[in-house]
């Protein structure tokens, strides 16, 4: 049963349509990521759902109700902006209380609700601070509390973590997931970061230029990219033309293929690579240390490939310029749609 349905969305300018018969439906309680490069329409989609941009064509249903042309405040939607958009003149408490004050709820009730909410996001001590006295991560949590305090049916997150440093981003990511699951809150999460989408979501919607390229759960989207765009955007897939794939694997290929860098096998001795395609001689061009992973750029004739290996023993790091053998497990080759 779908909870949020977008049907036949038409949006954009006459010369430059962004969405053309766009359809998407989302199940209740799910965290869905809209993933794509900037300009693919993911933020516009969020604004359409929130009612901040007037809808030009199509319908939006939320929990069985047609909200296509409702005012934003009648939609029961909470949203966290990329800039947080905290009200600079109001304290943390008043920011969170804003929606409840607008609803003219009794003072005591507001106090109770806001305090409980601040407790949830671990900000109780900072209730009287102004937004400019907070760190980025704290601002983010205030924005989240402000969006959640009036118990929305749908939560929209517009790249909420992109302005934070890596450590805080990971922590907040977990906190968002925890809150989302605790409330069973249907959430639409916009991001351009594939790692964020993969770790956080129940469902990933990969978009390009106003179209859905692929959707599915994290494992599906990661392991089976449908076309070259998906393969390049998610993971650091090596994309090979049919002839390149044939040269590499030694088998006849008729279409373009993608292979994940961690699926390629590298060795100093060709005989350790038996059981796969015939090993090819390669030379290490570049080496990048990503911490737990070593990323090699190797040259095989005309081809340059990315290979990832776990950084298990410091002695087993291949040097730049070293001659190696590369083998391609046939099962790991993903055919791509043209």
């Amino acid at each position, binding site marked *: 049963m779908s909870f949020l349905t977008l049907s036949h969305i038409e949006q954009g300018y006459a010369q430059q349509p962004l969405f053309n018969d766009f359809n998407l439906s989302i199940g209740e309680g799910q965290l869905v990521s809209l993933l794509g490069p900037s300009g693919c329409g993911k933020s516009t989609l969020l604004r359409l759902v929130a009612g901040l941009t007037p809808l030009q064509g199509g319908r939006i249903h939320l929990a069985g109700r047609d909200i296509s042309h409702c005012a934003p*405040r009648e939609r029961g939607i909470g*949203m966290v902006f990329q*800039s947080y*958009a905290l009200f600079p003149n*109001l304290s943390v408490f008043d920011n969170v209380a*804003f929606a409840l004050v607008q609803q003219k709820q009794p003072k005591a009730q507001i106090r109770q609700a806001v305090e409980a909410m601040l407790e949830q996001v671990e900000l109780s001590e900072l209730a009287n601070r102004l937004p400019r006295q907070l760190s980025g991560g704290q601002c983010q949590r205030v924005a989240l509390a402000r969006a959640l305090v*009036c118990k929305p049916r749908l939560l929209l997150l517009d790249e909420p973590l992109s302005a934070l440093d890596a450590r805080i981003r990971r922590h907040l990511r977990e906190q968002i997931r925890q809150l989302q699951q605790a409330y069973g809150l249907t959430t639409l999460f916009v991001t351009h970061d594939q790692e964020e989408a993969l770790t956080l979501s129940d469902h990933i919607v990969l978009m390009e230029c106003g179209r859905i390229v692929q959707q599915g759960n994290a494992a599906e989207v990661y392991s089976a990219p449908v076309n070259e765009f998906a393969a390049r955007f998610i993971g650091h897939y090596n994309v090979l033309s049919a002839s390149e794939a044939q040269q590499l694997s030694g088998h006849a290929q008729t279409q373009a293929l993608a292979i994940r860098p961690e699926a390629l096998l590298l060795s100093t001795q060709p005989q350790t690579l038996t059981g796969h395609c015939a090993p090819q001689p390669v030379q290490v061009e570049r080496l990048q240390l990503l911490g737990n992973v070593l990323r090699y750029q190797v040259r095989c004739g005309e081809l340059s490939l990315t290979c990832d290996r776990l950084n298990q023993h410091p002695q087993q790091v291949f040097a730049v310029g070293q001659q190696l053998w590369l083998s391609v497990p046939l099962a790991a080759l993903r055919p791509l749609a043209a």
Partner: protein
Amino acid sequence: MRWTEQHSYRLIVWSLVGLLAMPLLATLLYSLSSSWGATLLPDGLTLRWYLALWSEPRFLAAFARSLLVCLAALALTVAVMLPLVLVAHTRWPWLDRLMQQLMLLPFAVPPVVGAVGLLQLYAGGPLPIVGTPWILIACFFTLAVPFLYQALATSIKALPLQDLLDAARLLGASTPVAFCRVVLPSLRNGLLAGCFISFSFLFGEFVFANLLVGTRFETLQVYLNNMRNHSGHYTSALVISYFLAILLLTWLANRLSRSAR
């Protein structure tokens, strides 16, 4: 090393302050002296000039007129500029570009030229307001616009305005409520800064006031000019009083706005 460095900075700052304060201090001393002729220091100190000044009805009237015209012009400017700045930064961005151009006009046209033009336009015709406070208020309005617009535009540009309005709308506030509860309070500092600077500028305005209304609606600066053949002690007392009045008003407004937080 650090010690001497700090002291040389202080020396520079204080000598600058001294240099700038010198004329004012000299005026103050002159206004307080009974007579100051061929000697290095005044003969004696007295408050006589201040008492004479503050019991002079013509001075008090001029002071009140200046205050009235400036405050009226300022109120008009704020009433027009606030909505204009908001609209220019939400709806019609072209308006902001237009204002940036228009703002230069009061500075591009020399005051004397502007005053003569205004005299020609408003001496007769459908709107004969030369010699009345109205023309001064309207003229001061144009002088205050650049200061106020610039101050407001700078503070509004520092806000994520669209996001703030969107957030407020989602949280149940209408756009007017969002403006009143969120945007206006965030512009307060810019607004105050703009008001202070325009007020002190307008309070000291002489050329327009003298040419457009002159003695028919004598403002403080025009009065000062008319008193130039009077005793120098008396006019010094006037200058100091005028300076203190601005200082007091600024301090008061600052104080009020702070306690309103």
